[in-house]
């Protein structure tokens, strides 16, 4: 699913990623760890196609629309409700039976009762849950999660762990809390 050789990325003069080699098979689970500023987010954004490498090669065997991405920003409209956000993403990501799929995810992530409330009224943890629903909505072949446990309470974190354990397809998780998903990992990448 991901094949990288000598992957590098600079921002101006600053080299954030330098010569990363990476192979992740179709059903692999890559756990990325490292301190702040070590390049975890940059790696995920490169894999998502949101950044272009400045060196090396990167091949992703998933088309646009087959990638689910959870970054630092929730990527949802605060002025829309949870249901409206998922309806819009479902439309743009060509999700068949998107209403049913949205409802199922909202139910599973404990947001069904507040589905018609605007996101602006949500807590940070609820927004993170909605963001996970958005990333999972189109059943992506490649799921990229950047600090997915941020702001989640214990129940939310356990829910996500179950979701990841049941998932088919390739997954990349960058986290400061590797214990939560370490048993799922088939590959590890530790930045210094």
């Amino acid at each position: 699913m991901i094949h990288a050789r000598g992957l590098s990325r600079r921002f101006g003069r600053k080299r954030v990623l330098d010569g990363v080699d990476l192979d992740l098979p179709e059903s692999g689970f890559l756990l990325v760890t490292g301190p702040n500023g070590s390049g975890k987010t940059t790696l995920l954004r490169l894999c998502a196609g949101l950044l272009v490498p400045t060196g090396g090669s990167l091949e992703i065997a998933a088309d646009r629309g087959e990638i689910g991405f959870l970054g630092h920003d929730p990527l949802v409209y605060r002025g829309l409700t949870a249901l409206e956000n998922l309806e819009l993403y479902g439309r743009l990501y060509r999700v068949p039976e998107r209403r049913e799929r949205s409802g199922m995810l909202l139910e599973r992530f404990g947001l069904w009762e507040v589905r018609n409330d605007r996101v602006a009224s949500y807590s940070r943890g609820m927004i993170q849950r909605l963001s996970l629903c958005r990333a999972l909505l189109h059943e992506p072949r490649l799921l990229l999660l950047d600090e997915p446990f941020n702001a989640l309470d214990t129940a939310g974190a356990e829910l996500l762990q179950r979701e990841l354990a049941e998932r088919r397809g390739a997954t990349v998780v960058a986290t400061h809390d590797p214990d939560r998903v370490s048993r799922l990992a088939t590959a590890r990448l530790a930045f210094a």
Partner: protein
Amino acid sequence: MNYAGDVAALLRKDLLLELRAKETLPAMAIFVLAALTVFHFALPSGSSDLAADGLLWIAILFTALLGLSRAFVAEREQGVLDGLVMSPCDRSAIWLAKSLSALTFLVLVEAIALPAFSVFFAPVSLTTVAAVALADVGLCTVGTLLAAMAVASRTRELLLPLLFLPLALPIVVGGVGASVTANGGRYLGFLLVYDLVFAIICWASFEYVVAE
């Protein structure tokens, strides 16, 4: 079919956000009325209608700029543009929907501004109305592309006017020409050509603007 559906879904979202937040449209309406009021008192009595027509175009231009500066605020605040860009929909659909929403806001504001101009200065001719309609299309298509470029920059508030005003200059020339000359048809044709050329350029180039 998918393309039209995507544009409709994105446009509906923009209109819904504005309907709820009421941030852009009231600001544009107040701005254009305030500008016309200031112009009314700034223009010496006895000035010709030609001078007033010029001021109308200044008011429209800066009102459009005000609206365009807020075009991608919702996307910027929550990083939503990344989510839209990663979707399999044609990226030009994002531009087209945003241009149409900007156009809707501008037309709604002008529905207040043109009667107000008639009260403060002189009646607006049909040629001027046609010129304003054509100018709106150009302002919104070009302005939306530039707003998308500026939104990625830290100096976005500064960058948008710097990029937008030079490219809007032909619209002002065409608009003022259509309003003040006896034979405005030539200028309307000029505005139409501008709209077509820049709509095609913006439609084709948006993909590259939102890609890194």
